[in-house]
């Protein structure tokens, strides 16, 4: 036990003393903020220049003019300059297809030349077929949704008019206003989409980076000891299992130190919450004790499971390069939840989500995402997510124990084998040996 402690201390010190540890502490949160917040912030950002457009109104029923005036409400950040500048409204004869084609060709060249941001083609009988074409080199989500809303409002007003119900276009806006649907967990805590998405990704990323990052440090340290033959000196003094356990625990403590510092930074930032609008949203997650307990369980289990696998790889390969082949599937297993995050957000209770989150290799990342999306406020096994999350801990813990046992059997032989990589039958022989 005492010798294991010496190994733990060395592994811990080797990581914590490095500059990269400090850099990781500072850069990782910035990186997390970047990947989670930036897309949301960018999507929200208003355009800073006036965009020019033209309209081909084949319906020739005044829609072009109405659309032009409906765009006047949109102003740039300065509150004065209009966001859109409608240059021309063309009303060609819709039956003269060559004239229309000629006009479109001309506008196309303007768009390509950058003289015109975009143009719209309002089709004939648009009140019946709802068809409008927008031509542009690139499309912004913001502009598209504005055009769609305004045109829909205009068409709605015109249809009402045709039905002899006289309403102004402006009042249509009022009539067609959308409901502001807010999500609340039982108990009244507000949960909005951005918070759920961000919170989920942030915590998944922490587990992901801890398991993969520290797992690979562990793997490299095994390969280093193997290649330099220090391994022989070490195992002539200490049992291979003690060595492996000392490494796993030592690096695990280093990773927990890092996470603890992140939490501390988070808590400090939260105390200055006025400066950070997002902290109020995230606080609902960070200060939910049930969530945090589950998070810590999954963090530790995820690390143990994956770092043991990395120790296994380190013990059977001869170089970092050889190890790359094995790292890929492990990374894939860990990154899967991030890739299907959008699906889980929409269907956190679906059978697919439940089954995937109960597969031990996916559990740490997948389950924490589901807990976050579904929300846990009370610890009660009647709540399916509490039951599943707890079952996930048990299954992952059992799998981890099995993986540790197998790895320990292979490790003690693999670390003294050089040259040819063992085949699967050989590995099985080692496990039984």
């Amino acid at each position, binding site marked *: 036990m*005492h*010798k294991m402690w*010496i*190994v733990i201390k*060395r592994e811990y010190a*080797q990581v914590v003393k490095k500059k990269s540890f400090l850099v990781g502490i500072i850069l990782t949160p910035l990186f997390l903020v970047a990947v989670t917040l930036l897309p949301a912030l960018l999507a929200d950002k208003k355009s800073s220049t006036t965009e020019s457009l033209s309209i081909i109104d084949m319906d020739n029923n005044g829609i072009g003019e109405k659309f032009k005036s409906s765009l006047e409400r949109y102003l740039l950040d300065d509150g004065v300059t209009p966001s859109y500048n409608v240059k021309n409204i063309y009303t060609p004869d819709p039956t003269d297809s060559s004239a229309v084609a000629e006009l479109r060709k001309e506008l196309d060249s303007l768009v390509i030349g950058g003289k015109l941001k975009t143009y719209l083609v309002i089709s004939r009988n648009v009140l019946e077929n709802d068809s409008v074409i927008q031509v542009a080199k690139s499309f912004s989500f913001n502009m598209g949704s504005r055009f769609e809303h305004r045109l829909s409002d205009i068409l709605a007003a015109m249809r009402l008019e045709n039905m002899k119900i006289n309403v102004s276009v402006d009042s249509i806006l009022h009539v067609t206003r959308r409901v502001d649907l807010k999500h609340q967990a039982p108990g009244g805590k507000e949960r909005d989409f951005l918070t759920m998405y961000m919170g989920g990704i942030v915590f998944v990323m922490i587990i992901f980076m801890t398991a993969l990052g520290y797992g690979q440090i562990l793997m490299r340290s095994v390969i*280093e*000891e193997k*290649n*330099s*033959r*220090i391994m*022989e*000196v*070490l*195992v*002539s*003094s*200490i049992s291979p299992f003690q060595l492996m356990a000392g490494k796993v625990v030592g690096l695990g403590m280093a990773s927990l130190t890092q996470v603890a510092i992140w939490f501390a930074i988070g808590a400090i930032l939260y105390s200055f919450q006025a400066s950070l609008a997002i902290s109020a949203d995230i606080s609902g997650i960070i200060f939910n004790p049930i969530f945090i307990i589950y998070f810590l369980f999954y963090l530790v289990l995820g690390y143990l499971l994956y770092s043991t696998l990395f120790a296994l790889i380190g013990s059977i390969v001869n170089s970092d390069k050889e190890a790359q082949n094995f790292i890929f599937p492990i990374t894939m297993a860990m990154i899967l939840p991030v890739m299907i995050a959008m699906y889980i957000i929409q269907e956190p209770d679906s059978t697919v989500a439940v089954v995937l989150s109960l597969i031990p290799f996916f559990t740490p990342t997948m389950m924490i995402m589901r807990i976050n999306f579904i929300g846990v406020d009370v610890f009660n096994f009647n709540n399916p997510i509490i039951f599943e999350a707890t079952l996930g801990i048990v299954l992952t813990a059992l799998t981890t124990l099995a993986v540790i046992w197998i790895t320990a059997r292979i490790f003690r032989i693999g670390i*003294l084998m050089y040259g040819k990589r063992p085949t699967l039958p050989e590995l099985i022989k080692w496990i039984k040996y």
Partner: protein
Amino acid sequence: MNEYLRLDNICKYYNEKAAVDHLSLSVPKGAIYGIIGPNGAGKTTTIRMIMDIIAPDSGSILIDGRKLTHDFKNRVGYLPEERGLYKKMTLNEVITYLAEIKGYSKSQVAAEIDGWLTKMSLQEYKFRKVEELSKGMQQKLQFITTLIHKPNMIILDELFSGLDPINIELIKGILLDQKRQGTTILFSTHVMEQAEKLCDFICLINKGQKVLDGKLADVKAKFGTNTIQVDIEGDGGFARDISGVEAVTEFNNYIELKLAADADNQTVLREIASRVTVRRFELVEPSLYNIFIDVTRSDPAKLEEEMK
């Protein structure tokens, strides 16, 4: 003499092929014991079994009359054949870590480390990283890590590999020092000339089997009744044709002649002196190298190849 380490009929097979084949040997306490043989003879495998890194398929290993214990692991210093240390750690950290792993306390290391570093002329590098050292310095550092925890026994695999002549002398001096303090030293090597200058006892092995073992002086006496060394000017190839000469081994500066049991060395001397100028003529014990060839009836050319 007290026996410290005893191997009894140990065998180790790799894929049905015997790497070590019913090897028995006895290492006396406080002796310098050399396991000598060409590459692939089974030296490293034997040492790894003594170190409990791998287990023998059969046979037993006894230390001080007992099975391997954890305590023995703490009291043995081991230098593997291929050397290497943590490149990113400082000398101070590496030495302390490897000593602590052997159960030696941090404060003891702190008290003794400077003496060792000075002895090896590494004092100024104490807080520098291992990767900053030259190969030779790293070798000396590794010797410190092998010895600092005051082992009862030192086991050195391919002791001389990678050492330059100056370091060989330094290390020999330190090993003789350790011997004076009562430490038992076991090493393996394929460099027989170096081994015979250092060992009290030897065990020659070849193809996993013991060829012969015993006190070096006894072994030499047994084989050394009829060998002469001659320093001559010019080519000594003619010596083969002198009657009574059984074998000729040419070294850089001299030739070694093995004579038939009934040959008279004075007759041979006169014969040589009549052909070339003789600078030195000496009745000697045969070199281990020649004994090895003699006993294994190896083809010298082939053995030369295996020694490389």
